[in-house]
Structure formats: structure tokens, C-alpha cells
């Protein structure tokens, strides 16, 4: 059973087709780079998997079941632009949110939950920022907080939307190192990524997407010049003509 299985997924926003007839079988323990130009539907793909939006057609199975049955086993790190940074939330409070899906309504968070949160924070080097308000952190530290929350959720699948935007090099290295370690323990990662130059170094699998699925598979075989051109297509050529 694959962690995520997508058959014939199509999504439209107000009659405009964003994703078209996508078939994908995601393999366990792999780190996937999801690559494609702006507006290619990368975030939409994540939102479809998480059922945050309505899809026009297709069947998506997560861990062999409907997403509603397995929500706590899949963690999402959204783009961090729609966060209210003045919110009275401390780093610790936010990381502990990862424990919420494991609790029933009348259950309190306990020492065990705090311990799990502490471990996630210490792996990402933010344990000493535990009692800081979220807005007092740098962009990189903020991103690590949200990854720590996903780790505290102890999910089997992680969806990360552009985790490296607006973060420093140290954070980028720390995050990728952590993702690789997690993948080594059998967790599956999907990462929306923009920087083509680091794709080969970061991801063992790629998904090249531009409304349609262009290519998918091991990076070594699929991340070829030909596939990249197909994905970015006319846009890249246009860029070349105007700049040179």
C-alpha cells in the first residue's frame, strides 16, 4: 500500500483548470521534490490531498484510506505568509499543537506530549526559544517552529509547502537534514520547492508538474534537462530571449 495514491485528479477554480488528470503513486520513505513554475498547481495538489478544497474529479487515498480516517497521520506545513505574527502564541504552544490530533476532547496534554514537543524542538535547535512569542523570531526560526509542530504530530506523511522561502542557509541545511533523517525512519515527505539547483541534492524523488504531471520518479532518472524544459516550457525560453 502506497502512502498516497492519486487517480485521475482534476481541480478547477472558477472554471479555470488548475490540475488536470493527475495520476501519482507516492512511495514510502522517499523525499519528493514537487517542482514546477508558479501557478502550476503545486499547492493545489497538497490542498487536494488534504481535502481542504473541492476536487472536480478523481480519487485520492491516503495510507489506503479516505483522508478523514487518517488525518492525524499526515502533517502539513503550509506557506507561512498567512500567519498573524502578533498572535499571543509562544513557540512551545505552537509545537504542542502537533499533539492535538492525538487527544480526545476531554483529555489534557500531559508530560509525554511536552516531552515529544521538546524533542522536536531540540532536533531543530529551537528549544531555547521555547518561551518566545512567535513574532520575535527570524524567518528561519519561524519555519523551524512549524516543522517541529509537524514532527510532534508523529505523522507518517509530511507535506511541506515551500519551506525554504525566506529562511537562512543554516535553517535550510537543518531542515533538509531533519527531513532526510525522518525519511530514513520510513516517513514520506513531499516538499514544494523552487530552487532547481538544489533539487538533486535534496530529493531522492521528483514530481515535475505544470497543471499536468510531466514526470515523476527517482531524481537521477527523471530530473533531466528535457523534463525540466517540458515543465517550464515556453516560459523559460521566453526568459532566455529577453535577458540575453
Amino acid at each position, binding site marked *: 500500500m502506497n502512502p498516497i495514491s492519486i487517480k485521475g485528479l482534476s481541480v478547477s477554480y472558477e472554471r479555470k483548470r488548475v490540475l488536470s488528470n493527475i495520476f501519482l503513486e507516492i512511495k514510502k520513505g522517499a523525499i519528493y521534490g514537487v517542482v514546477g513554475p508558479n501557478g502550476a498547481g503545486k499547492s493545489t495538489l497538497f490542498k487536494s490531498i488534504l481535502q481542504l478544497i473541492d476536487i472536480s474529479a478523481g480519487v485520492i487515498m491516503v495510507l489506503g484510506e479516505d483522508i478523514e480516517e487518517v*488525518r492525524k497521520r499526515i502533517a*502539513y506545513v503550509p506557506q507561512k505568509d498567512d500567519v498573524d505574527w502578533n498572535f*499571543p*502564541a509562544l513557540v512551545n504552544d505552537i509545537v504542542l499543537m502537533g499533539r*492535538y*490530533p492525538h487527544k480526545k476532547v476531554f483529555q489534557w*496534554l500531559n508530560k509525554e506530549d511536552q516531552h515529544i514537543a521538546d524533542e522536536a524542538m531540540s532536533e531543530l535547535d529551537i528549544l531555547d526559544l521555547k518561551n518566545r512569542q512567535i513574532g520575535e523570531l527570524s524567518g528561519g526560526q519561524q519555519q523551524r517552529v512549524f516543522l517541529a509542530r509537524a514532527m510532534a504530530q508523529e505523522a507518517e506523511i509530511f507535506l511541506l509547502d515551500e519551506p525554504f522561502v525566506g529562511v537562512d542557509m543554516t535553517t535550510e541545511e537543518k531542515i533538509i537534514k531533519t527531513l532526510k533523517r525522518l525519511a530514513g525512519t520510513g516517513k514520506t515527505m513531499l516538499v514544494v520547492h523552487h530552487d532547481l539547483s538544489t533539487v538533486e541534492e535534496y530529493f531522492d524523488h521528483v514530481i515535475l508538474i505544470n497543471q499536468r504531471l510531466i514526470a515523476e520518479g527517482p531524481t537521477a532518472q527523471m530530473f533531466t534537462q528535457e523534463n525540466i524544459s517540458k515543465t517550464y516550457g515556453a516560459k523559460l525560453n521566453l526568459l532566455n530571449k529577453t535577458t540575453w
Partner: protein
Amino acid sequence: MMDLLIDALSSGWAIRAMIASSLVGIMCGVIGCFIVLRNMSLIGDALAHAILPGIFVAFILVGYSTIGFFLGSVVAGLFTAFGITWIQHNVKTKNDAAIGIVFTTMFAIGVMGISYISQGEGVHLDLSDFLFGTTLSISPEDIYITGTVCIFVLASVVVFYRYLFITTFQETIAQTMGISVKMIHYFLMLLLSFAVVSALRSVGVILVVAMLITPASTALLLSNKLKNVLIISAIIGLISANLGLIISIIFNTTPGPAMTVVVTGLYLIAAVFSPKKGLAVRYIRKQRQRLKIEQEDILKQAVKADDGIVLDVSYFTDKLDFSKGQVKTLLQQLSKEGLGQWKNGRFKLTDKGLSAGEVLVRAHRLWETYLVDKVGLNEEQIHDEAEKMEHHMSSEFLDEVDHLLGYPEKDPHGSPIPQKFTRPKLSIIDLHPKSKAKIASKQISDAIESELWELGLLPNQDFILNEIGRDYVEIQCDSEKKEIRTSLARLISVEK
């Protein structure tokens, strides 16, 4: 006046009013935090206005009944919440306009209805009691209802704290965790209706929004932790409800406006004096920064004078945009801080003052050099920039700039840059080709040491100099050849 107050407070109606107001203050304080954090202040106001028709309808159905009024108002509140959401989702109307349309309509119907029925004979309904609150008509029954509601609201917040927190902070994440964001929204609307309806008698519908948003906004200025914000907000609600009530008894006025004035007063105090976010703290910080910059400007000029001795205040006023009085004050301050001595119109920098001044001159000239060498500005463009930057560069940052520029000795205008790092006594460049030497164990700066480390050169490592080129220097370590940039080789200390 005190007699009047004590007299009033010992009578049943005043004690009931006090209990009711306290409960309302706490409830509104707590629920208000979520309303403010969700940017729903306008909805809070709308809901409060919109409960009036509930009273009217309840009166028609069951006559004068406290329970009837309560239930009628809650239904009207929820009806409004649903109505607003429905319009926002289904009609192409701006969100805040939708809120405005619904609540003004409800309010209008309520006012018309209540005015109409209060004309009836033997009906003790007064519209203004509902609009601005009243202390006189709170019955024991009111207290029971308000008490029950208050316990329910607080217990709900405690039990569903996690859900309220996460849906307020990041709705999407709550959704991906399988939390029904919609259900939490309507549940909060229910709690909000409860709080607003309870406040009907003591605050009145027009001003209840003040008891919702002002304590919460005050608490948000005082704490960064949601749990503390909730507690502080409840306490502020409690205090202002009681103070407002007392004021309204003393001056024989309606309690709602008095409470509102008190709560706004507390808000203003917090806005000015909050230890972290207050205007006072920010003003003081700004003033300190300005003072520091002014002192630094004086220091920098003084260090340029011969031996750091200035005989006349006009030396400073000629160069800086300061008045004589200003300069004198600054010189006094510098003397107090041990950076100089100011006596009989003569100012002399102490050693401490001299080195502090040199740091500034170094910062200024290094930054000018940076702007010319690395940014590509010309000599006319750089002075003002450096004037600003010199006050804001940490010493670590300056050392990095110094290293990046290759430890220059002169700035673009040809003035000497005070040297923090002395140049090597003997560098690789000073050696003759084919001569043997070893890397010195102490280098001029940490940055040089880390560059050596990256090149794989260790302290005390022996090497032979092969040749010195224009761009690169080649050295031989054991069997390995290494190339070093000539500009860097110039800065590497070696021993023979």
C-alpha cells in the same frame, strides 16, 4: 457622597447589580479575546445590537419573563450570526457591509417593537434600559441565569481551549487535523450571544462591544501568552464593570457608559505604560537612541582634535548641527560616563573616550570604503550614508567588513582608518621564493584563522614558498601544493 454609596451598596438591588456586572465583565473579557484575535469586533457589535427583536418577540409570545427574554435574545443572536455568514457566502456583498445590513435591520426592528409594546398599559419595559443598561431592575432570577451562563461559558472555554486556540491562530492547520472549523465558529457565536445577552441589563446593547474588545485589547498589550491574556482580560473586565457601576451609582447615571469610560481609561494606561509594548517605553528607547547618536557625534569630532583636547565649544558647533547649550549638556554627560573631562571650557577625552571615538571613526571610514569598493558608489555619495551607519554597526559586523575589505589602511578620501588588527610582522609575501617557513600560531584576526582552516592550513604547519604571482601565491606543504589569493597571503602571519 460616600454615605450614598455605602447606603446603596448595602441594599439588595445594588448587590445584585454588582454580582451581575462582575459576571458580565469576566465573561465578556474572556470571549472578547477570541473575538478580537479573529478580527470579529464588528460581529460582536452586530450581535449585541441584533438581539433586541428577540426581546420583542419573546414578549409577544410569553409576556414579561426573564427566561423568555434570555432565550429570545440568544435565538436572535444566533439568527444574526447565521444570517451574516449566509449573505457573505451566497450574495456578492462585501463582508463588513453584510454585517452592517443585517445588524442595523435587526436593531431597527427591535427598537420599533420594544417602543411599541412599552406603550401598552402596565408594561414596565423601557427601551433605554436595554440600550444603556440599568442597575435597578436586576432581579434574583437575572442573577441565577447570568451565573449559570457564566459558568457554562467559562467551562466551555476551558474544555475547548485547544480548539479555540488553533482555529483562531491557523484555521487551515485546524482543518487538516480534522477539527470542524465551522462548528467551532458557531459555538463561539453561541458563547458570544450568551455573553452579550447577559450584558443586556448591566451594560446595554449599544456599549457591550466595549466590554468585549477593550479588555481584550488591553490584555493583548500586556502579555504574549494566550492563557495569560484570557486571565488578564477577565480581571480587567471585572474591575471596570464594578468601578463603572460604582461611578454610575454615585452620579446617578446609566452604568453602561460609566463602565465603557473606565475600561477605556485602563486601556489608555496600558497603551502608554505597558512594559514591553507601551508608548512610553518606545519613546524612552527612541530618546536613548537619539542621545547615544548625539554623544557619538561629539566623541567622533573630539577624537579628531589634537590629542583629543578641545578648547572651545564652537569647535563642535561649527562641525555639527548642535546649539552651544546642547553641546555643553552632551559634554557634561560624556564626562559623567568617564569618557572625557570637561573643566573651565576645556574638554579632554580620557583614554576610554579616545578608544570609543576611534571605534566610531573606524566604523565611518570602513563603511565609506565598503560603499566605494563593494557597492560602487562614488566619494560624494558616501559620507551621509556612513554618518548614519556608524551608529548601528556591531563590532563583530565591523570586523567582518574589515576582513572583507582586506584590512584597508586608508578610506576613499585618503584619511587613515584606525586599525584594530595590526598587519603581520612577517607575512607570506615578505618571504623569498623557495624559502622555508611555518604558519604562525597566532593570526591577526579570527577571520584569517578561519580562512586558513578552510584552506587546510594549520598553526605551526611547515611549508615552502614556491612563487608569488599577481593573483595567487603558491606554497608547498609536504607533497601538496596550495594556492592562496595574494591579497590574503599578505595578511597571513608566518614564522621562519
